């Protein structure tokens, strides 16, 4: 994919991050919880994962955050140094790191969604 298209995807990720991150923070501050401390109780946290809408929102947040953060870090690394080998290593490294982050986060979300205490 061309760099300009990736940047457009990055812009869309930024919009989605604004919405989903606000909702995520709200569920730990005032949305459906009595306070921040109460929102970190094991049952409250588990409730975030077992609720389908919240779990889906967390999955979307995970994917867009992983893309935005790794894509931006990749851009910084490519500004820092140049060269064919360096560019190839950074591009592949970014793909691998982003994939690992998404896989690890999805494992948490899906496993917490399907397991019952």
């Amino acid at each position, binding site marked *: 994919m061309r760099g300009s298209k990736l940047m457009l995807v990055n812009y869309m990720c930024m919009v989605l991050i604004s919405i989903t991150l606000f909702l995520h923070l709200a569920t730990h501050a005032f949305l459906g919880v009595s306070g921040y401390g109460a929102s970190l109780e094991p049952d409250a946290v588990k409730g975030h994962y077992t609720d389908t809408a919240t779990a889906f929102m967390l999955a979307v947040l995970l994917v867009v955050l992983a893309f935005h*953060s790794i894509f931006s*870090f990749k851009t910084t690394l490519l500004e820092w140094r140049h060269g064919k080998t360096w560019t190839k290593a950074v591009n592949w490294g970014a793909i691998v790191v982003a994939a690992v982050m998404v896989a690890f986060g999805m494992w*948490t979300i899906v*496993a*917490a969604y399907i397991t019952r205490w």
Partner: protein
Amino acid sequence: MSAQSPASASTSGMESRKKTRFLGWAFDKPLHLERFGMMLHRATGLGLLLYLVFHLVVTNAILGGRVFFADIMGMLSNPAGHIGEIVVVGAVGFHGINGIRLVLIGLGVISGRPHRPDFPYKAPSLNNAEKGALWTAFGIGVVSVLVASFFILIGG
């Protein structure tokens, strides 16, 4: 005075140029407001990336069961942990608003399209709209810290 061969002098010169390039974008003169904003944007971005990895690992503890998760939360629930969370929310506030400013500049919305430099030369960057947006980002960062402090320290 130590004698230095031309070859070693050339090598040390290259090393110093490399060092300058590595941090050149950050500490090149003049250190004006926009450069400071860029430094802070990258610092908060890198910090938030590290926090994201940490957050993914910590939340994975929910799979270990109720007691295990409560133990992990108990370990993190201390003044240093709370200050760290407040700093994270402040960094999110600044990084988010400054990111919007950078997108608006990139799209030419608040900095205008590039044009031929005519005398008297006037830098198109850091006009009032850009300065206002940057100060708004700093302000939102501070407000985020205050709101997070309320919810974490007082409202919790």
